[in-house]
Every structure is written in structure tokens, then in C-alpha cells.
């Protein structure tokens, strides 16, 4: 897996060179950017709301806490046996003196204390175990880590939580088991804080109170597009170097406060343009140093020209940045498969290590990034070659399930109660369940035994294994139908499609204020991380202008764009949005009811938007007037059964299995919308991020790039609700083709199969017509063949 990342480093260099040669443009910046410190609700809120007091965090930072690099979702350990992998960076002199691993955690009340434990490994060595016993608030466990456990650079920490329920032995109850780590108060407590002396020290930068890694681009009030374009390559390089999913870029005249990075980029020309600005004079070259405030770094790049800056950046990439880039963004990401067509991957590629499982519900998950131009349909299946074994004594309800994007797509019953061994048992996963970009894949094994019925904790034998899932378990990707189809914000978020192909594209900041610029740069850095490459962005301040076959990302706060979206080819109907699986209730999303879908209990507080008021009233009326089941006549029962069966069949026929919860959005309720449409010239693609005001766009983009939100983007467009900041996605109405690189017969055949599957009425008509013509001709010809029967 390492080889592709090496080649990515080369393309990164090329992209940087290209970025430095972009045309220049200038426009005034209207206002300075305020610092955004709002705490966002959502998935992170449960942690934030009960987090240790800010004073504690401040103390921790003061005493040299090196934070973990991972973003929020990585800090949750759920189920009976879960693993998470974290990393932190140390300078050589910090390694020598050792330190303590601080883990501030809390757990669910249902976790049985004493026997539930978290095992800690540092760089593959067992560093300690502690019992899980902090249901009432965060408690910090400090494990002393000697120098022999540590190494300079990135250090890996593996946390394995084995959790048992206090009273309930049902499969569903395993979803009530969780522990979570507070990222702000956890990390490596080095003996000394060394500040920011080298680029690698940037990897230790802490997050803000909003749980984001703050990068603040310092620009003069008279900012020009040229200045932004100068800064874009550096910013993207920094994003790739940090490899953090929670970057937030702000733009301002003055340095930021709190933990973070202030970024200064200037050429002689832009410095000359920035007259009367009270800015510190940065040294020539690419450098890093401490800011005035503890925990804040200054990164500056200064050259005579953009070309010179580009050279300096390249030199850094090949020099001091290289090792951390290789061990960071270019390494195989833990828990992620970057899937390509006709390829084979194993669970080991996701970082999974074989382990014996003794509980009731084994859960293993990973993210599979499918190619951006992949057409999901039923022309093939993804093969899961299961290498596993079950132990004797399982009940006959034991089964293996695969969930893709929160839907159970297949199940395989463990029928042999005497135990079974699977040496590459093929389980087929429908391609339609996947989508371009990020896909959440979960492998679940429901493993009940008779003893679970009794549920006597004292009689439980946790040492007796029930299941083993080997890391050799393989995922085989078939040949895929490849065609770029837009709108598809899943491909946009997962792979930066269509901006990642090396071709330069435009970023239009329609209203050139600091917040809009910050939003644009945040999007750009997030896209660079998705693409694992700096993108060839050309930033323009002002109204978007279509140019031939140049794609564009438009950051707009003008309402006109909403109108454009509504009337454009891509279509952006504001009144019909699909609830997002992350925030909308997904308890009804899966038609297959098993214990293994019970983790939806964590989506607390989300409510289903069940349509317009009249339909809701009608529904309520029906419910209130429905006779109880027992009072219905046989005819009524049959009618309702057939009606339900017909409805289910209709949904199935329209490929709406479980994912058809439709939310209704009323005009003006969106904080931000993200949509894609053909450019006005029709030859390119515009991705439009729209909000009502600069403040909204800053807030909306911050919400949009939250790791959990970004990873779950899919469909044709997305919106963030103003009131709740809930993210809704809308299915694509109709696609337009954005590009097709593979024109082989095989690909065309797969594409035909995919398209006809989605439009089977044409398929049926075409076959009936073509075969009908053939049959009629044959019917006229046959009597004239052989012994003539027409005489």
C-alpha cells in the first residue's frame, strides 16, 4: 500500500508548482474576520457538554500535554470489545525523558465496573490496563510511559475496551456499552514542553475549545486574490502535513489566540501592496516558530516571488516535512480502504488485528473510499472472503451481518452449532449499497449462546471465545462501471471530485469578506486532505464567471445562487430534502431488524421530519382512528397486509430499501446549502456553497467539515438547518455526466447495465421491441424454411 503514496508525493509537488503559476487578481477585503468560538451541537456535543473544566485543559496545555492527532469520532469505544488507534508526535528530546499517557475518559452507566477494562498499548507494547469505572464524569488515568516505549515522531497508541453489561445479556444491550475519551484532556504528558521549533512540532498543536485545529491566515486589510492564491499552496501543504480532519481556517489581520497556527505568506509584491499594516516582518523562507502565546505557532513563508516561494515549499516537502508526510497523510490510514476497481484488500489493510472475541456481538468497521466516478448499481458485487471461525455452542440464531452505510446488506447464518471454520467463504455485497467516496462498512457477528438467557454475571465465562475474525478476511472489488456523474457530494467529500484530477479550477468568493474567505480556504484544505494532494485552485474575489471547461467552487452569500440552483440543470429544490443518516433518525432506515442495528440509540435527540403539516395531520388522524389490531376483520387485515406488501414492493422496485425517509425543508430554514450543477457554459461543474450571510457561511462550513458530517455527506446536495444545525442530504434528482475516462467495451457494458438498471422501463421496452422485431421476422421466415408449411 505504500507505493501509491510515494507517487502521490510526486503529484503533490507538481500540484504545488501549478498552484504557484496561477493568474493573479485583486479585490478589497471588506471586513476583518472575527474569531469563531461557538460550540457546535451535534455528535461532539455529548462530549463537550460534560467535558472537564476549561481550566483543566489550560493546565494540561501548560504542563506540556501533547494531544492526540485524531479527530473526534476516534475517541469513542463502544460495544463489548472495541479498539481505537490514536497517535501523538514527540521530539527526540521528549522521547528521552519519557512521560505519562493521560487518558481522561468516562463511560456509560450500564458498563459493569471492575471487570470492564481498557488495555493500552504504546507502539505495539502493552503499557497498562485500567478498569472502566467513571460513569459520572471524566476521570483521568495517567500511565507512566518510559522512554523505551517511545520513539521520535509519531507514536501509536492502541486502546482496547472490553466492556460488560451490568444486568442485560441481550444483543441489543451491547449497544449501551460505551466509553469515550476526552481529546482535550488526553494525550501524552511530556516531561517538558518544547514549543514550536521545527515543522514536526506543529503536529503537537492543540485544538481550540471548539475542538478544531485552528489555522489563521494573517493578511492585510487590503487583501487581494493574489495574496490568497499565494497562501493556498502553503495552506494545503500544512493541512496535508498535519493530516487532521478537524482543520478550521480563518482569515484576519491579527494573529489568533489560544492553541493554533498563525500563517504568514507574502511576496515582496504583496508586502508592498499591504501598506500601512502593522504586521510583523517575517524572515525570508519557510519557517516555524513560537507565537507569543503558549500553544500557538507561527508559520511563515516569504519569498521575493511566488515562484521562489514555491521552490522553498518544495524544498521543505522534500526535506523536513517528508517523514511526517509519509507517516501521516501518505500512510495507509487506520480504518480506511482506498478502494480501486479490480483490487483486493484485507482487513489487515485497515489496521485490523486478529483477535478472539468472547462476547455476544462482534463489531468491526472500516471506511471504504470508493472511486469518485464509480457508478453504483447491480452489475456486480463486492466479494467479502470471510476467514473466521465460530466456537461450538452458539444458538441457531447466530449470524454474520454486513452493514454498509447503516443498512444491512447481507446476512449469513452460522447454522452449524458445533462450530464452523470459514476459509474464504464468499459473501457478496451489492455494489448498489456503496457510493462514490466514503462508505461505512461494518462486519457484525451476532453470537448468542444459551447461557445468555440466564444472564448471571457471576456465571459468565468471558474467557470462552465465541468467534474469531481473521485479518486475512478479504474484500474483493470487481471491475467497476466508471463514469463521472454529478451532482454527487459524496464523491466531492470523499475524493474531492471533480477537483482532484490535477486540472486547475476556480474558487469564487462572491462576497470577499474574511468569513467567506475563511470558509473557502477551509473547504480547500479539507478537499486537499480528501484528495491527499494540494489542488490547483485559482481563487477569485467577486462574482462567479463561467470559463470554458474550468470547474469551480463557488462560495456565495448571495441569494441569487439559490435561484440559480433551483433553475439549473442540477436542480436544487429547496422543499424536498432527504434526512441525513447521521442526524435523522435511522431506526426505520433498515428493513432488516436485528440486534446489530441497535446503535441508532446513540442518535439521540434527532427527530424525523415527516412531511408537510397536512400529511402529518392526516397521518395522526389515521392513527387516532385506527381500530386495535384484534378488532379488525379478516378482510381488513388482508387488505392492510396486501397494502403493506404492495408498498414494500413499490419501495423495493424503486431501490428505496430503508433509505427513503424524506424530510421537508421550508424556504429560509437553511443555514447553508451545498449543491452541484453544470456551469452556465455547460462544459464544467460548479459546486456552490451558499449561505445567507458571511457569518452563516463561516458557521455552516465549520459544521460541514466536521469529520463525522463530512464523512457522511452523500446524495445530490446538502443543507444545514439554521435552528438545529442538523445536516440533511437530498438524493440526486438527475445526474449529468462530468467525465468518462475508461471507454473500453467492458466499461461501456457495465455502464449500460448500471444505467438500464436505474431506468429499467427503457431496458424492458428495448428488449421487447428488439426481440419482438426479431421474433416477427422469424415467425414469417420459419414457414418458408425446411418443409414449407405455408402452402
Amino acid at each position: 500500500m505504500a507505493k501509491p503514496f510515494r507517487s502521490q508525493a510526486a503529484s503533490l509537488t507538481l500540484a504545488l508548482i501549478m498552484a504557484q503559476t496561477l493568474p493573479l487578481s485583486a479585490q478589497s477585503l471588506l471586513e476583518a474576520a472575527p474569531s469563531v468560538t461557538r460550540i457546535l451541537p451535534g455528535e461532539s456535543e455529548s462530549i463537550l457538554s460534560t467535558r472537564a473544566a476549561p481550566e483543566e485543559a489550560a493546565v494540561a496545555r501548560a504542563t506540556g500535554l501533547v494531544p492526540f492527532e485524531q479527530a473526534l469520532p476516534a475517541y469513542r469505544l463502544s460495544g463489548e470489545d472495541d479498539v481505537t488507534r490514536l497517535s501523538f508526535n514527540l521530539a527526540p528530546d521528549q522521547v528521552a525523558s519519557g512521560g505519562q499517557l493521560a487518558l481522561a475518559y468516562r463511560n456509560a452507566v450500564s458498563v459493569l465496573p471492575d471487570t470492564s477494562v481498557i488495555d493500552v498499548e504504546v507502539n505495539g507494547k502493552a503499557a497498562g490496563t485500567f478498569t472502566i469505572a467513571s460513569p459520572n464524569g471524566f476521570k483521568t488515568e495517567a500511565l507512566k510511559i518510559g522512554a523505551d516505549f517511545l520513539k521520535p515522531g509519531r507514536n501509536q497508541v492502541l486502546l482496547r475496551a472490553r466492556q460488560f453489561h451490568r444486568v442485560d445479556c441481550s444483543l441489543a444491550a451491547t449497544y449501551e456499552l460505551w466509553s469515550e475519551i476526552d481529546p482535550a484532556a488526553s494525550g501524552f504528558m511530556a516531561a517538558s514542553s518544547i514549543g514550536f521549533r521545527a515543522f514536526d512540532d506543529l503536529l503537537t498543536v492543540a485544538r481550540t475549545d471548539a475542538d478544531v485545529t485552528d489555522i489563521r491566515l494573517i493578511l492585510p486589510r487590503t487583501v487581494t486574490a493574489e495574496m490568497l492564491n499565494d497562501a493556498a499552496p502553503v495552506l494545503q501543504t500544512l493541512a496535508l502535513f498535519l493530516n487532521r480532519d478537524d482543520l478550521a481556517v480563518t482569515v484576519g489581520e491579527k494573529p489568533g489566540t489560544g492553541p493554533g497556527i498563525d500563517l504568514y505568506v507574502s511576496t515582496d509584491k504583496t508586502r508592498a501592496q499591504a501598506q500601512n499594516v502593522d504586521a510583523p516582518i517575517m524572515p525570508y523562507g519557510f519557517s516555524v516558530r513560537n507565537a507569543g502565546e503558549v500553544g500557538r505557532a507561527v508559520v511563515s513563508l516569504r519569498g521575493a516571488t511566488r515562484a521562489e516561494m514555491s521552490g522553498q515549499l518544495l524544498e521543505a516537502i522534500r526535506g523536513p516535512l517528508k517523514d511526517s508526510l509519509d507517516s501521516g497523510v501518505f500512510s495507509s490510514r487506520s480504518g480506511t480502504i482506498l478502494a480501486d476497481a479490480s483490487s483486493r484488500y484485507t482487513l489487515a489493510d485497515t489496521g485490523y488485528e486478529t483477535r478472539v472475541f468472547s462476547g455476544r456481538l462482534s463489531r468491526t468497521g472500516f471506511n471504504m473510499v470508493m472511486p469518485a466516478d464509480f457508478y453504483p448499481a447491480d452489475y456486480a458485487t463486492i466479494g467479502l472472503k470471510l476467514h473466521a471461525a465460530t466456537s461450538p455452542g452458539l444458538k441457531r440464531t447466530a449470524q454474520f451481518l454486513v452493514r454498509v452505510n447503516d443498512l444491512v446488506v447481507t446476512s449469513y447464518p452460522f447454522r452449524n452449532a458445533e462450530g464452523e471454520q470459514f476459509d474464504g467463504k464468499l459473501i457478496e455485497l451489492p455494489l448498489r449499497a456503496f457510493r462514490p467516496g466514503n462508505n461505512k462498512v461494518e462486519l457484525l457477528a451476532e453470537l448468542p449462546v444459551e447461557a445468555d438467557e440466564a444472564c448471571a454475571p457471576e456465571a459468565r465465562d468471558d474467557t470462552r471465545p465465541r468467534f474469531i475474525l481473521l485479518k486475512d478476511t478479504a474484500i474483493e472489488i470487481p471491475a467497476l462501471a466508471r463514469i463521472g456523474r454529478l451532482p454527487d457530494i459524496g464523491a466531492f467529500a470523499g475524493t474531492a471530485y471533480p477537483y482532484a484530477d490535477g486540472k486547475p479550477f476556480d474558487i469564487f468568493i462572491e462576497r470577499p469578506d474574511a468569513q467567506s474567505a475563511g470558509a473557502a480556504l477551509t473547504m480547500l484544505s479539507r478537499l486537499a486532505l480528501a484528495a491527499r494532494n494540494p489542488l490547483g485552485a485559482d481563487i477569485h474575489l467577486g462574482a462567479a464567471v463561467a470559463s470554458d471547461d474550468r470547474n469551480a467552487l463557488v462560495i456565495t452569500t448571495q441569494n441569487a445562487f439559490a435561484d440559480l440552483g433551483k433553475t439549473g440543470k442540477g436542480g436544487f429544490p429547496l422543499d424536498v430534502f432527504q434526512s441525513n443518516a447521521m442526524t435523522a433518525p435511522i431506526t426505520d432506515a433498515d428493513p432488516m431488524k436485528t440486534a446489530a442495528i441497535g446503535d441508532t440509540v446513540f442518535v439521540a435527540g434527532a427527530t424525523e421530519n415527516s412531511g408537510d403539516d397536512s400529511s402529518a395531520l392526516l397521518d395522526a388522524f389515521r392513527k387516532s382512528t385506527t381500530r386495535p389490531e384484534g378488532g379488525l376483520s379478516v378482510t381488513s387485515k388482508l387488505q392492510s397486509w396486501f397494502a403493506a406488501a404492495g408498498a414494500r414492493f413499490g419501495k423495493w422496485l424503486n431501490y428505496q430499501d430503508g433509505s427513503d425517509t424524506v424530510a421537508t425543508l421550508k424556504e429560509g430554514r437553511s443555514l447553508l446549502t451545498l449543491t452541484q450543477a453544470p456551469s452556465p457554459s455547460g462544459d464544467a461543474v460548479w459546486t456552490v456553497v451558499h449561505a445567507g450571510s458571511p457569518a452563516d457561511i463561516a458557521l455552516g462550513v465549520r459544521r460541514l467539515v466536521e469529520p463525522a458530517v463530512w464523512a457522511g455527506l452523500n446524495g445530490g446536495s446538502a443543507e444545514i438547518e439554521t435552528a438545529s444545525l442538523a445536516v440533511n442530504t437530498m438524493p440526486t434528482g438527475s445526474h449529468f455526466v462530468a467525465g468518462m475516462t475508461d471507454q473500453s467495451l467492458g466499461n461501456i457494458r457495465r455502464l449500460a447495465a448500471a444505467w438500464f438498471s436505474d431506468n429499467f422501463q427503457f431496458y424492458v421496452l428495448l428488449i421487447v421491441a428488439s426481440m419482438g422485431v426479431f421474433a416477427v421476422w422469424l415467425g414469417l421466415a420459419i414457414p418458408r424454411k425446411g418443409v414449407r408449411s405455408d402452402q
Partner: protein
Amino acid sequence: MTCGKYLAIPAGALGLLLILLPMSLQAQLMLSFAVLGIMFIGMTRPDNSTFRVITLVFAGIIALRYGFWRTTETLPDITEPLNFIPGFLLYLAEMYCLAMLAISFFMVIDPIKRKTPDMGSAADLPTVDVFIPSYNEDAELLAVTLAAAKSMAYPKDKLNIYLLDDGGTDAKRNHKNPHISVAAIRRHEQLKALCAAMDVHYHARKQNDHAKAGNLNEGLKISRGELVVVFDADHAPVRDFLRETVGFFREDEKLFLVQTPHYFLNPDPLEKNLQTFARMPSENEMFYSILQRGLDKWNASFFCGSAAVLRRSALMTTDGFSGQSITEDCETALSLHCQGWHSVYVDKPLIAGLQPETFVSFIGQRARWCQGMLQILILKRPFLAKGLTIPQRICYAGINMFWLFPLSRLAFMFSPLLYIFFSLEIYKANILEFASYAVTYLISSFAMQSYLYGRVRWPWISELYEYVQAVFLFGSIISVVRNPRKPTFNVTAKGQTLDKSKLSPLAKPYFAIFFLLLAAALYSGYRVLTEPVASELLLIVAMWNLINLGLAGAALGAIAERRELRRNQRLPVKRHALMHIDDIIHHVIVQDASSGGVSIEFVDKEPKLDLVNPTIAKVEVRRGGQTVNFNVVYRSRRVIDKTAICGFAYSERTPETVMAIAELMYSDQSVLQDRLVRRQTRKNFFWGTSRFALWSLTESLRAIRYSAGLIRETVVQSFEDAPMVLNDNKIVQVPLPVKTAEPGLVLKGEQLYG
């Protein structure tokens, strides 16, 4: 039409490409509905060739789709040999069925109905030699066949009849075993006397080389007729046989064969034991009423060993009848088709014969057909044979490959057990896939079966016949595949009687299979009820096994043999006659006739008839101004629908009597035709399935009752037939039937060629 093909062929190719696209289940299901709809529309006009082809093409789409899906999606992983090996065998069985379906569609795409051509003037008619090969059939049976042949409407000077006796050859008469030699000498003398009395030729060759084919070739050597007619010993032709067939040779100089159907007077064991003979079309009617006509379209109708006219000059080009296989008929036709000769099939019953009565002889006959056809498949490789047209290759390959059905049938019977008992997953599919592909294919199959063959085949009867044969033919196939030259000609036993009902000696494996399937059905029911996550596959397999159990249950009825006391098969002739009793003439209707006697209905007042001192009467039948007389003796009386029917036996059986019998029974072809048509009525699928389910229940219980010896039957007294008396008043000594135990598969006793 020429221009049309430039549009139609690309359209067909496009359609084929689209059908083979790997589509979603939703698309497949919608396509199924659409295709089934068009198929059913096509079925509304069965007599229109274009509609018929449309129906077949769209049924073919469903089958093709199923085959493609079955091949690409449902096979077990090769890395799981326990699943893969049986799964692949089942797959092969299904692919065989699909191939046979395709071939059968091709065969029956446009069946031909021939019109009888004019024979021409009597002076120009060709000379005809009738060959009646015989092995060890009794003289009474042969006498009727000879008489019927002699009665055929044809100039006497151009018609020669030969009894080719292989039971009285020099080799047999000089056999070192004195029992065999004495029996052969006696038979030789008897038949010679019979032939002399009947004024036909008798010939017995020196050796018994090449069985029936060798015997017929010997006939060719001793005769000179331009046309050769072959009748099995029990196949009595109707008077118009030559009138219906000879004219075709005048129209086509390259014609070597005119084949006619084999019509049977008696039921086969399944018809007898399931008591369907009077109502249900016989098994062979599908072949003779549909398939041979379909083959005729492609100039591929073939010789069936009897009831056919062949051109001598054509036979000479292949040195006579071929004898490499034990089905010389088909082999001969293949050789002549390869030489470019033509064949014609006339779909009119023109002979009446006998089928094997017992299950043992039935299986023996089918084993010979099966082995012979596979010998041709292996040794002659018809698909690659030089000289055949492509359609002929397809047709011959199809009719030969058909006999591999026991392999597929047994695969279908036993496959579900692997899942029910051992949970081997040999067919990978979920319920939606099964519904989209397999169920639509099954619907299409049943609909097409009804559309193409519904007139001559009730639902589930094909499956039943296949199963009862498959159990024993499996071994025959293995034997012929291991050594294609090994099988030898076994003569089919016919004309047997059963004194009392009993289980066939071959019953054991059928019981074993039935109880195995019953156990599987019970166990699958237990699994469905007790397994918390009963899989869709289990439900499908349990249902499949239940159908198999139904087949096995009905098959038990076939091997629980009902008694058969009737020596002579009746033919309902409904013919006016005069009966002379004590010088009083009564107008009567001869309701039916057999070679033992007649059933008489008195038109006027019924005279007083004495059973103790049996009344003797003379029956006078007239045709074309000539009278035929024979004497009868009163034997019985019964009332059917308030009509008294009196049974009379022939008081003596002289050559004249036999000629009269032939006149009575075989002078009118429409008698056979009417009886055939009366049974050919369509039964819908649901009626057929209910009927079959009832059989499964009642017949399996009857078989179990037989196995426990719980048979209540009264003793029936019957009269011996009158002895055969020749012109010189010499009584033909008919050997008494040897009452031995039920013969095994190597058949002995009264046997016939055919």
C-alpha cells in the same frame, strides 16, 4: 423478407446483448413480467405460425435469462468442494434441461400436417413387400397381423407379405440344447403352416445375427418390392395403410421413409395402474402427435421400427438396415438422412399394437431405447455427422440426448436432500432472486408445456414417467457410457397377463426413495418450525422436496400393479352387423371387437341367450357389397348405461375368422383416430396438479397396502380362446404360457420385437 433480416438480425443481436447484461433484480423482474405478458399474448393464436414463433422466442428469453443467471450467480464457490461438486452436478442437470428445452423449441417451432397425396393409377403403383419380423410370438397374434396386412387395400399382384421368423432359424432348430431346438422346430412348422394357410411368405434365416436389423436385411434379400413396409408382430395395419402412405413416394424420388404413429390398444403399466387409459392421452402421443411432426418440418422424422414404409433403393445405399446399435430404426434413418434421403411423417394412426403390460417389461423396453439412442449418440455422433443439414443435426442430437433425462431427473430428486440433511448450499440464491429468475422460468415452462403439449400431456405426467424410468435407466446409461458396444438386443415382452394385483419385483428402490423423501419432508418441516432464522433457501428446498415426494408417491402407484386378466384387447368399432341365431336374423351393433370375440348390442329386442348351453350364432358383416361371416358363442352379458351388451367369443378361429377379425377391427382408420382424439383434451395446470396430488396420496397408500399384502380380489372365471384351426383342419398347437415368476430385466417368455 430479405430486407427484413437486415433489421431483424441486428435487433435480435441487440436484444441478446441486453438480455445478457448483469441487471438489477428489479429490472429482471419487470422484464419477466413484460416477457411473460407477450408470451401469453402469443399463445392466444396457437394456429398462427408467427404468433407461435413469437411465443417461443419470448419463452426462450426467460429461459436464457435464467440460464445466464444460474451460470454467473448461483454456483457455489469452487473453494468449497462439498458445496461445489453437488452444486455443479445440479447445475449440469439444469443446463441439460435448458439445452433440451432449446432443442425442443426448435423441433416444434412449426409442426407439419401432411396431406395425403394421390396414389396414382393402379398400374403405376410400386410393388410393396411387407415384412413382419417375429421372434417368439404366438401364432394367434401373428395371424391377426398377417390378416390385417393381407387386408390392406392394394393390388394383390403388387403386395407380398413376409413373416420373417427369427424363432425358427436353422441355428435355433439345430441348437445344442434339445429344449430350444424342439421348440424352434415346432414353431417353424406351425408358422409355416399358418403362412401357407394365410397365403403369405414364411422365411426363417440360418443365423440370428444382428437381431431385428439382421432379420429385416434377410427379408430384403429374399424380396424384390420397390417399397418395404415393416410391421412389428403385434402391429396390425388398417386397411388404408398403404393408401395413406405410398403416394408420398410418387411425389418425391428422394423419399426413403414414410413413418406413421404407433397406436396402442392396451394401457402401459402406468396407465393401467393409475387407471388413466380411457381418459388420459398415452405417453407416446406427445412424441407422435407433436414431436415427429416437428421433426418432419426439418426433414428429420425418423424410422420407429414399425408402421413405416421405406424405399428399397434407398436402403440399398446403406446396405440395408443398420445394426450397430440396438435401436436399428433410428440408426437406419440417420444413415439415410446422411445420404441426403428424405423422410415424411403422416400423423394418422394406421396400425394398432400392444404395449408392454408389466412394469418389468416396460422398463426393459425403455432400457433398450435408452441404450440404443445413447449408442447412436456416442458411436454415430449425429451432431457432427456428415451429410446432415444443421436442423437435422440439432434434431438428431436432441432425440438422442433426450435419453440422458434419468441423470437430470435423479439430480432434481436428490439435490434437496443435501441441503435438508446436511445444509450443503449447492444453489446460491435468495428469495428475491429466486422469484425474479427461477419462478418466472418455472411459470414460463409450465405455460409452454401446456401450450405446446397440453393436448397430449397432462401436467406432471412427464415428470412422473421420467422419474419411474430414471431409477433403472440410470444404470443403463452408466453401462452404455462405459462400453457403448456392449448392450445387446432384448426383446420386449408383450401380451402378458397378471392373475392378481401385486407389487412389481422392481418396487424396492421406489419405496426406499419414497421413504427417504418422506423423512426429508418431515425433517425440513421440523427445521422450518424450530429454526429461529429459517432461511428462504430452506423454504424453497422444502417445497421442492415436497414436489419430489409427490412424484415418488405417485410412482408407487405405478409399481403397485393391478391385475390384468384380459388376453385380448378390445377396439370399439361400433359397426352394424347381422346376427343369425336359430335362423332368425337380428340387427346388431358390434360395439367392440378383439381377437378373442365381440361385444354385441341388439338393436331390436334382445333374443333369449343361454349361457349354460352356450348359444351359437353367426355374425355377418358387410362392406362394399361383400359379406364376411364368422361364428360366435355366447359368453357373457353386462349392462352399460341401461344398454345390454352381450359378449360372444369366436367359436373357432380359422384363417377366415382371422380375416374377419381384421376386417372388423382394422378396416376403418377413423376408429383409431376417434379414440385418440377423444382422449386429447387439455387439462389446466391447477386441475392437473390437484389430480396429481390426489394420486400421490392415494397411490402411495395403495402401494403400501399391497406391500402389506392387503389385497382383496375375487377369483374371476374366464373361458379359453377358441383354438386356431387351419384350412386342412390341422389345429395349431399353441404352446401353453409358462407360468413362472415375474421375469427380470433379461426378458423371456412371450416377447415381441419393437
